[in-house]
């Protein structure tokens, strides 16, 4: 028996291709992308979901992690700037280090900007999935550094918004430093006579 090669054979990627209703599936052939993903190196399962971020979609990810012993997850859906925290939490709940999850942005960067070009959008979506899967093979678990938060807030500006925010924070028991460049607080509002819609005095 030959011992299994370390890196290559250990990588088990699951790819989850999201329709986002018609947001993605309206412009991208998600079925074809899923088939394509399945054939990528290291990919052991590829699943298409209607809404990956919804509970059924997330459960599918968690189940697949257990069933296929996945150690990397690629979610091909929307921008990581929106849902990276969602899917990091999802894989964490299934016992995977959150840094082993990677996203491919098929919505903001693809379907939404290439409607009416199904072929081009689908080709691009495949590349983005291939790129995410290639990257996933090099992902490593990471530990986040935890740092204490100083229990004091700074509010910059003593107009109506700054005053209100300071008062609310202080009412909630927090220490607040309010800075104002003028000799007095009040800002523009203090320069007004009556204010709408109540027609009462501003101060």
């Amino acid at each position, binding site marked *: 028996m030959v011992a299994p090669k370390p890196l290559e054979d250990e990588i088990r990627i699951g790819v989850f291709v999201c329709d986002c209703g018609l947001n993605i599936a309206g412009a991208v052939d998600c079925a074809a992308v899923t088939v394509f993903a399945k054939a990528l190196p290291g990919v052991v399962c590829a699943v298409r979901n209607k809404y990956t971020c919804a509970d059924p979609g997330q459960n599918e990810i968690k189940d697949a992690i257990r069933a296929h012993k996945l150690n990397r997850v690629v979610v091909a859906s929307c921008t990581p700037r929106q849902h990276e925290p969602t899917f990091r939490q999802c894989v964490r709940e299934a016992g995977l280090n959150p840094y082993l999850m990677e996203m491919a942005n098929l919505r903001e960067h693809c379907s939404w*900007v290439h409607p009416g070009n199904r072929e081009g959008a689908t080709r691009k979506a495949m590349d983005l999935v291939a790129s995410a899967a290639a990257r996933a093979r090099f992902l490593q678990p990471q530990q986040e550094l*935890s740092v204490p938060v100083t229990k004091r807030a700074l509010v910059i500006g003593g107009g109506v918004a700054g005053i*209100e925010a300071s008062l609310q*924070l202080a009412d909630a028991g927090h220490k607040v430093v309010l800075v104002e460049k003028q000799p007095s607080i009040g800002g523009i509002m203090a320069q007004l006579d009556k204010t709408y*819609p109540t027609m009462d005095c501003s101060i």
Partner: protein
Amino acid sequence: MPSTYVLNMNDCLGNNPIACGKCAEACEQNAINYDDHDEILTREIGAIIVAIGLDVYDPTEMDEYGYTRFDNVITSMEFERLICAGGPTAGHFVRPSDQERPKRIGFVQCVGSRNPKIGRPYCSNICCMNTIKDTLLLADHYPDVQNTVFYQDIRASGKSFEDMFQRSKEAGTRYIRGLPGEVEEDPETHNLTVTVENTTSGSLERHELDILVLSVGVQPPKDLAKISSLLTLSKTSDGFFMESHPKLKPVDAPTRGVFFAGFCEAPKDIKDSVCQAGASASRAGALLNTGRIQIEAITSRIDEQACMKCGQCAAVCPYGAINWKKGEVAVVVEAACAGCGACGATCQFDAITMRHFTDDQLIAQVRALLELEPQDKVVVFACNWCSYAGADMAGISRIQYPASNRVVRTMCSARVSEEMVLEAFRCGAPVVLVSGCHYADCHYINANRQTAKRMQRLWDKLEKAGVRPERLQLEWISAAEGQKFAEVMRQMEELRKTVTMEEIEHTRHALQPKHKKIPEKKTATAGAR
């Protein structure tokens, strides 16, 4: 208005040495302290709420309304002082030229708002309702006044606003759709004549008035740029602060721990400012309550075995997060590292690993993107905070562009190493674009200066190798600039079409590394597919 007296140091004749000293003589309480001076206080802070408000538009540049030429043309802010019981006229509304009470009062809306010609395309939100309020106040104080409002649209969409608008009309205010083209003054009486095209009736009208109030718009405060660079915040195209997400995180700044309240985020009235202040306070309070926060594990690590002690990394770190002394191995202070990756792209000895944005990972992405038909594709390196977000904005706004681009995300454009760009060309990319935040908006203080320097070196390198340098492009695109992102993608596609297969083939060979720099292991695993 301060509740106690303060010395206005801009007008004081001088306190060091004391030039006049009359105030100290007059103050029986001996409260005047000429030795008081500005101090710098240092406090540790866990959360910041930015509530720096607004500046009111100065209508001097819009000369057609005659604000600088005619006494009886005033701004809505000046109106507030004239109608205020605590103001200079004790609340008796008189006009500046003769201190008489005006009866025919005009209001011009959108002065400095919704006017792209003067670079102010946005609606200031508050001026319609403010004018409606003013007409009601006048009608209430002086039943004989005739108010006339010149407007383009009346925006009265808040709670009970429409009701106020109707009441203003019932109180006799005339609303004329159309902004005045010209204002003239009778030199004798100082009365004003306003010429306006009434766009409802289509007729040219002249209105004689005793006073004209310019309903001035609002603008981002001039300190915004300073605060913005201190806290690494970004602006939307109208110059107000950009929030983290317009629907899901409307009061969070993209910088963690920073929140917005009030006008500086977008024009809004008092009620909305108070609401937003509450939301910000609650977000900031939640952060303070957690006690600890996790820092994303994207920081730099230096391999002390591989480090050649050159100090290059310490020289480029915008945060001073790398300790290095001549002849010693460089050390990263993890809590100070923001994860821009400038050091990782700079180290020539493969001694730095950027966690979660490693060379291996990024090169693998480039190779995967270009595996099939690379000649059809434009490789775009986009930084998380600006250009990647700008591409998201293009998506959210559904702005279409050619489907040839392939984006690789890094936290900062400074993370993009020479090797990554060269590898893209070696893999057959016709065009490579590196994009980041505008110079002053870099999310990592000024790391994008390293990007600019590195690009210069790369252009030189390409030129030497006989590769057209313009095939490597650099663009600064902000998170708000979805339009610009799409436009740049169109340009890149045009550029791509000019690149021939021969050029691409030549480039593959011309850029082969002389001494194999990429270790075998990485090449083998990444190229296995």
